[in-house]
């Protein structure tokens, strides 16, 4: 496996992130990349069970960064991308709040799109985060979506 690039930034934290700052960090002083793709995941107001008021994200601290680094390294092994930034929040969030940022820069837009979506799909099935919703009908652990599992596996058939 290729070594993790110094241009990777991975952060797991309670504090919010600024999408604009993350985007600027992908572009600043970067004259060789023509493409920047970014994804932000937000807390929706309605999910599996009920009207959601807040969402609490638990994680397995010792494993979280390790698994995210492995996912980013795997993306780099597949596509020639330049800069990668990944921020995932934990703790209690309100509806509309940002949960996760994935940003990728590359010379070629298709590689940036692929790497960004790959990282999200793998994160959804391999990174140790769990969501608990607090809403109208009480507290519920979010159940894993079988489609997420299928989507993550499709990358290994390509």
């Amino acid at each position, binding site marked *: 496996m290729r070594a993790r690039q110094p241009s990777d930034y991975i952060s797991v934290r309670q504090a919010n992130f600024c999408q604009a700052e993350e985007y600027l960090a992908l572009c600043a002083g970067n004259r060789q990349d023509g493409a920047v793709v970014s994804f932000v995941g937000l807390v929706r107001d309605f999910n599996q069970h009920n009207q959601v008021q807040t969402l609490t994200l638990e*994680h397995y601290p010792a494993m979280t960064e390790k*698994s995210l680094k492995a996912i980013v390294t795997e993306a780099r092994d597949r596509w020639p991308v330049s800069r990668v930034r990944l921020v995932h929040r934990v703790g209690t969030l309100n509806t509309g709040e940002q949960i996760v940022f994935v940003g990728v820069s590359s010379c070629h837009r298709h590689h940036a799109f692929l790497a960004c979506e790959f990282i999200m799909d793998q994160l*959804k099935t391999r990174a*140790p985060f*769990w969501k608990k919703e607090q809403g109208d009908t009480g507290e519920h652990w979010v159940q894993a979506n079988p489609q997420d599992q299928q989507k993550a596996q499709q990358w290994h058939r390509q």
Partner: protein
Amino acid sequence: MITVLFFAQLREQLGHDKLTLHSAFYDIGALRHYLMAQHKEWQAYLAPDNSLAAVNQCLVNDHHPLHSGDEVAFFPPVTGG
């Protein structure tokens, strides 16, 4: 010695977040069956279909070997992102 951690819904279902075991186990499958045999009420929750396993913070399957000093974790399918 093996440390066993439980997370999220599984932690709530079992009522434990951590166990320390002094026995030796051949692999994750053996550890899983030991825990299910010791605690009949855990069987449904710990079944391989309902819980993932990690050894030293890497996802593994039930054939992954165990060694003294390993940190094992069981948890439900992940739901981040």
